[in-house]
Every structure is written in C-alpha cells, then in structure tokens.
C-alpha cells in the first residue's frame, strides 16, 4: 500500500510533511542536486532581515555530545539581495517557499514581510526566538505581549500563512503560542534552540562572546518533543515540529505528539541530503504500519488531549 504523504498547514498544502529548519540549509538554493531539494514538502530560508547582517565574531560553533551549540547571529544578505539573488532559483525548485523573517523591532519584522510580499513565495516563519542577537530574537519570543506585537504588525501587511517559531527558553510555551495565534498566526513552529554555554577551561572564559549560545541536534530531541506535546494539548492550530529530528522514527514521534509537519536542522550539517532522505524513509515507515495517509499520524498519540 502506498501512503499518501500530503498534509496541510492551514491553507498551505504540502506534498509531504518534511522541510528543512531555518539556518541549517542556507537560503535553500545552494545545492539542489546534493540535497535533492525538489522533493521536500517546503523549503525554509535562512532568517532574513531588512539590512544585511554580518553575524557574530567567531567562534560560532561548539560540538557537544549529540548536539551543537551555535552563535551565528543571523548572518544574512538582507531581504533585498535575497529577492534579487536567491528567490528565482528557489522558485525553480518545486516546493513551497517559507521565508524566515527576523528583526530587531516589530516594525522591522513588518517591513521585511512587506518587502517579501512582492516575491513569489508561499508563507512566512517569524523568528522571534533566536538566542544569538542583542535585539529582537529571544527577547520578543519570551514575552507574550512582544510576540503579539510582532505578529500584529506583520498581519497588517500580509494575508499569507504565518508561522511563529517559538523558543523553548520560557516557563510557559503555550502562553507565547496562544498570544501569536490570537493575533492571526496560522500556526507555530517549535522549537528553536535551547540556551546553553560552554567554558574554555584553558582560558578560563566562556567559549562564546555572547556567553549563551543555541543548542540543537539529537541532544534536544526529547525536550523539543515535549514542547510539541504541550502545545498540541492546549492549542488547536497547525504545528511544525523541530529539534533533533534525524530519522523517520523521530519525525513520526513528533507527528504523533501533534506536529503536522517536521523540520530537519542540525542533521543536515552532517548529511545535506538528510531532509530529502527522510521523505522516502517516512513513506517506508508509514507503509510498514499500514498507514494510508500520513496525516492520520498527526496527534494520534492516545490520550493526547486528555486532562492529566
């Protein structure tokens, strides 16, 4: 039996639930053959800001057990260069394009989206959860009020599907998600990286200039899965699961916990073809279990919405 892999994120239909996570796949158009990008359910761009950003001074990376700390700092070419240099190549690949948007103020988020409205792309993912920038990023995503303000401003300038990428570095992730949905967000992506740090013992100082950095990779998978479960229990909206997903079993777990789609991030650094390979592996996984439609897996965990 062939499994129907198609799924819907609200009004956005996807051929399959697999996409890349922002920040680990460049702009999405870098290596179409190596990554077999055309088979993905959607492509998410690197986070775009109004002006080009140089990013943080090195060091920017530290490998950890089963994980990776990064402090890239939203290095990107800016929205103008993205539209001129990357979007047409992305467009030539089949999948819907989701632009990841960042900003140091609610106004910048809206201004970036306003610029992108002229481009042929399908949806936005608001990055209110980057831990590696001084302004915007995590400081927005930690506050329901600030998150609401960013979403409200963006909603004024677009009718396109709008996903808000949440930080797990909060006491109550559901409250932040609800604030985003109340202002018209279509759905939520969970999670961005967990704050962590490393100390350079030889030099007796933090490894990273900003001390804190974002932890990703298989090390955070159970933590991320729990956040998706928490969101799915309380909120009725499309969820995109992210955090340490490598294999079809990982993806299936996130879908059972309530995710409609999944993103592959850090695993792509090890194997750039991993997101594309996951599409095939997910089909094999579903077929082995006699699933006719992958969407039947979503939120299928028994007792998901029962009160504990």
């Amino acid at each position, binding site marked *: 039996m062939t499994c129907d892999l198609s799924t819907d994120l609200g009004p956005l239909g996807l051929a399959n639930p697999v996409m890349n996570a922002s920040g680990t796949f460049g702009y999405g158009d870098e290596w179409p053959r*190596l990554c077999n990008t055309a088979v993905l359910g959607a492509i998410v761009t690197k986070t775009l800001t109004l002006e080009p950003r140089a990013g943080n001074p*090195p060091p920017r*990376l530290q*490998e950890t057990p*089963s994980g990776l700390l990064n402090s890239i700092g939203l290095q990107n070419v800016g929205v103008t260069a993205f539209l001129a240099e990357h979007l047409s190549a992305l467009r030539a690949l089949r999948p819907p394009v989701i632009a990841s948007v960042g900003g140091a103020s609610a106004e910048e988020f809206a201004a970036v989206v306003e610029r992108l409205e002229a481009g042929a792309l399908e949806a936005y993912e608001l990055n209110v959860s980057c831990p590696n920038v001084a302004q915007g990023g995590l400081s927005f995503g930690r506050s329901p009020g600030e998150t609401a303000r960013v979403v409200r401003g963006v909603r004024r300038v677009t009718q396109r599907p709008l996903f808000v990428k949440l930080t797990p570095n909060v006491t109550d992730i559901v409250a932040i998600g609800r604030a985003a949905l109340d202002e018209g967000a279509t759905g939520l992506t969970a999670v961005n990286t967990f704050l962590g740090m490393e100390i350079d013992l030889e030099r007796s100082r933090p490894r990273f200039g900003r001390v804190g950095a974002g932890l990703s990779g298989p090390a955070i998978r159970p933590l991320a899965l729990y956040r998706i479960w928490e969101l799915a229990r309380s909120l009725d909206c499309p969820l995109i699961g992210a955090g340490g997903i*490598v294999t079809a079993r990982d993806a299936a777990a996130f879908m059972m916990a309530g995710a409609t789609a999944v993103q592959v991030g850090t695993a*792509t*650094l*090890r194997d750039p073809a991993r997101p594309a390979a996951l599409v095939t592996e997910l089909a094999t996984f579903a077929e082995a279990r006699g699933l006719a439609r992958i969407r039947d897996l979503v939120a299928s965990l028994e007792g998901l919405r029962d009160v504990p």
Partner: protein
Amino acid sequence: MTRRPVQGRAAPDRAPAGGPLGEPALFSGGVLRNQRVAAGLYELLLAVPDAGDPPRPGQFVSLVLESGVAQPEFEGLEGPLLRRPFSVAGFVQARGRRRLKLLYASVGRITRRMAALVPGANIGLLGPLGTPFPLEVPEPILLVGGGRGIAPLLYLGETLACRGRAFALVYGARRGAEMLPAGQLPGGSIWLATEDGARGRRGTVLDVLDGLRLEAPTVMACGPHGMLASVAGWSAARGAACWVSVEAVFGCGTGLCGGCAIPAAGKPPDFLWACRQGPVLPAESVDWERWNASDL
C-alpha cells in the same frame, strides 16, 4: 635553483579540470592503506567511486567514520555529530580507478579513531568542497607549509609537477620527527625548518623565507593562521601574490550554516566562510589582525 621544472612522481591520467566548480557529492571510500608517516601524522589512502568532479588542489573532503553514504540509522551518541574536513593530499585517476589520499594528525576524537582504521573499512565522504588554488599564475610558485598544513601542498605540488610548472617548497614543523620524509615531498627545491633543529634550519618557515634568495611572484601557503598571517605579510612586502588555505571549525563544510566565519579585510565586521569562500583565499581578503586577536 629557480625556474627549474621539477619531475612529478605519480602522474595521473587526467589533471584536474579548470572551469567552474561542480556540485559536491556524497560517496563512500574504502580504506586501502592507513599508515603512520611521521610522529602523530598519518596517511589514509582510499578507493573512491569513479564519478563526479575530481578534486582540485586546495579542495577538501568532509568525512564521517560510519560507512555508507546516508546514515538512516544514525545514532547521535555513536560518535561526533559533525563531519570533519580534510584537505585532499593526493588524488590519482587511472584505468577507471580513483585513489584519494588524506594526511591527518591524530589529535582529536575523530582523528584518533581514524588512526585505527584498517584496510577494508569504509567511511563516508562528502566533496570535493571549497575553493582550489589557482594554477594559472606567474612562476616560480613558492609553496609554504607548516605542520599538517603540508597536506594540500602535496597534491598541489604533484599537480604543478605534472604540468611542468616551476615551484619550490618551504616546509616547517615544530619537531623533525613530526615531518614527512623527504621522499614524500613534491619538487626538487625544498627548504626545511624545525623548531628543534632536527631537520633543516632551526626555526620557522619565516626564518627560511627571510633568508631565501628566490624571486617568487606567487606564494601558496597552508598552516596555522599565525604562520599564514606572517607569510601573507612577507609576500605583501615583496609584491608577491599570496594565496592561503585556512583552517577553522566547520559545521557543515558546504556553506549552509555559516559557522566557520573568519574576519574579512575591508569593512568590519564582515566575515568570510572558510568552507565555501575558502579554504583557499587571496591573503589580502583576510583581516589577519582581527583573526589573531580572536584567539581562534
């Protein structure tokens, strides 16, 4: 000593092509030989598929020790999460067979496990990646290698020799024991420097360069970034064009993550990605002062 074409030892059927760089590929490599060639220094010879673009001198491959191309059963705790980059130290294509040579120092989690690889084992490779050394440059070309930075210069030297190009080599290491045997070095004009004085001149490659009576319009160097900064300065003072192959901690090796930033010359705070805009860069494109200050 100058302008004397040197004899190549292993002439490949086809020298690496010019033109635009192709897209890298994932492939597996079969270990044919893995041997210690100096103190802490190993040479890994791999059989690789006869497909895709051959690597050009200066390019690198990125490896995982698990066999196979994709790792669907990847278990994070089995080993380091990220690939490790290695300059191509040699590449031969003959009778439809390809051999890839890597030179590595056994210093970290991956390289210590690499040292235990036995013939018949398979490893996962991604490449060729990064920018190559330019080959159409004024001669003679002075190659300057420090420590394990000799690796890309071995392949570069063989390629230059095959093409009958005039070049010379300056090679330095901390200790003589850590140095490759003379027979494994490319070219006829070779100057050595060791800090322990066991081989060649006592000192660094810079001491050799300062005493060198060779007019080289082109310099190509690989080694620690402090050495590269000095070689860049030495070249600039003599009006020689200088290319450097830089090393950094890589996340992806393919330009997807932006983790391997090094300071770019010009308008700070701009950065170059060592994996994609490099590893071979014109020396003047790097802000050596900022890089030295960053203690990377």
